[in-house]
């Protein structure tokens, strides 16, 4: 069930209405009437919340979306299940334009959208009813609903029997988020869209949540992850989309996207920390990723931008540094011991 964005633009000043879906859409010129300002998001007088977005979300993708605050991430993902409709362009799911209200409500069970702080949307008297809200809205029979709820709670590793009658408001923050998460999973979506799913969680809960998301992706779900954390994006995603002021700034594999460290920095984003360290090492003259260059450090000096040819995570960076150290234990120019110190510096326990 691929989701295709075809030149999608969205404007708060001239939002398209579903009933106009059959008429020709507003022309760009007409949409540029100065009017009310958007209540949040981009620069107050920017016309487009998102502009000319063009990509396809394939089945089995793990797409990361990054961007500065107000760059249109939330607006973009709300197009994916027809909550908002593009002012220009169209969103196709399985080849059907979801500007149509009926088509949009049909796909809502298939495309699960988890908003930021989903625990703030809990409402039912007990966990069971809250998780069952989605499946019931889909019109499933009670025994089917029951199975959905059991499966969903098991997926988020919550105990069905001890929690089913508990009030969601008595749970801890992390458990509340799990319940809210289960509420979306219970609809058995084939695509899961997550807006900052680990914001405000403690490190342990955060990790178990990210592992849960990775596990769901392994089980065959298509996942879209909006995050400010480049480490998470580099580790989990197979594709990354970077937005800048509502425009598509970069789209590609994490290797491709994070190769442009300086450009990312210019729009207020960073690169994964291991990659950042690798870039700085290269800029300092450590011949990473290029064994032949290790013999003549001058060659890396021709690469002042500090971009490396591959994307490093902590393990691969450590391996490479160890390999370099073994290759040239006596070379004075490299001094890998110092880089190890640099990596640890700043910690209070150093």
């Amino acid at each position, binding site marked *: 069930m691929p989701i295709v964005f075809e030149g999608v633009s969205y404007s708060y000043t001239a939002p398209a209405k579903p009933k106009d879906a059959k008429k020709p859409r507003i022309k760009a010129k007409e949409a540029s009437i100065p009017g009310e300002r958007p209540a949040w998001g981009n620069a107050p007088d920017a016309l487009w919340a998102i502009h000319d977005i063009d990509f396809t979300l394939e089945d089995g993708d793990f797409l990361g979306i990054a961007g500065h605050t107000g760059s249109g991430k939330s607006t973009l993902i709300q197009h994916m299940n027809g909550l908002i409709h593009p002012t220009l362009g169209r969103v196709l799911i399985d080849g059907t334009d979801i500007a149509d209200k009926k088509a949009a409500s049909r796909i*809502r069970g298939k495309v699960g959208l988890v*908003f930021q702080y*989903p625990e703030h*949307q*809990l*409402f039912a008297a007990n966990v069971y009813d809250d998780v069952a809200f989605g499946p019931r*809205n889909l019109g499933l029979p009670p025994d089917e609903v029951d199975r959905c709820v059991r499966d969903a709670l098991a997926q988020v590793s919550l105990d069905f029997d001890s929690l089913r009658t508990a009030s969601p408001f008595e749970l801890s923050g992390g458990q509340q988020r799990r319940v809210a998460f289960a509420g979306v999973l219970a609809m058995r979506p084939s695509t899961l869209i997550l807006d900052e799913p680990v914001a405000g969680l403690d490190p342990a809960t955060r990790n178990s949540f990210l592992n849960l998301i990775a596990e769901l992706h392994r089980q065959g779900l298509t996942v879209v992850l909006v995050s400010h954390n480049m480490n998470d994006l580099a580790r989990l995603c197979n594709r990354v989309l970077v937005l800048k002021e509502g425009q598509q700034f970069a789209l590609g594999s994490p290797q491709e996207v994070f190769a442009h460290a300086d450009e990312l920095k210019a729009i207020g984003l960073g690169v994964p920390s291991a990659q950042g360290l690798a870039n700085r090492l290269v800029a300092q003259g450590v011949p990473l990723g290029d064994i032949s260059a290790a013999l003549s450090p001058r060659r890396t000096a021709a690469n002042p931008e500090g971009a490396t040819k591959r994307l490093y995570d902590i393990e691969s960076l450590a391996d490479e540094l160890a390999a370099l150290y073994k290759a040239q234990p006596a070379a004075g120019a490299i001094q890998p011991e110092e880089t190890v110190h640099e990596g640890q510096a700043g910690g209070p326990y150093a």
Partner: protein
Amino acid sequence: MPEIAIIGRYWPGTSPLHRMDPRAKLLMSLAVMAVILCAQGFVGLGVCAFFTFGLFVLARIPLKAAFKSIAPLAFIIVIAALLNIFFEQGGQTLVQWGFLQISSKGLYQAAFSGLRLLLLLLSMSLLTLTTATLDITDAFEHLLAPFARIGLPAHELSMIMGIALKFLPQFVFEVQTIYRAQISRGATFAKSPLKGGFQMLGSLMVPLFTSAFRHAETLSAAMDARCYHGGPGRTRLHDLRFGSRDRNAVFVLSGVLAAVIAANLLV
């Protein structure tokens, strides 16, 4: 969910009207309403309309924005006009349709009361369009201060009012988010309340209330951290002062009142 229009949302500006003392503005807007209610004929209303539109020009607020801000209340005008058309009888009968009849006096009354209501709403919205909510609550507190002697908690009342007004946009935003989240979970809000719609409504209202309590706790902690105690002796950064602008406003308004009374007597 359509964006919820807020009646008379503050329209930032630096016009003389914006810079008037909020206390004076609050009292004057009451006076303007009294003047409009004084008018007994179209000529009097015409004077009021001229004056009201003049104020909008002075405040540099486009008329379109003015009408937009009172649009949610337009139904009151329509209902009032319709009631007058059908229940005010007299003069020539123009249309007779079953038991319904429209007379010339009914039409006249409908137009008159419709126009009067429109002017009342416009002049009321002018206060909130040109005054920030905090200034309005300050003015409110000052005007209630004399009653504090007989035990009226003037400061608390205005603080409650101010906080409520300040949080309105926040809650509008949150309702929109909750609404979208529940729609994503297959909720349909078009259903009748009797057919399972209560649960739908609950899925909106319960999160809204929990968030209101959450905000209340955070806000009270934040106020506490800033040593707020609300008691007497609290000073302000910007003290309210009456100025020449406010005196002039009294003169202008007296002039308008005189003109309206003259119109009532002469026409």
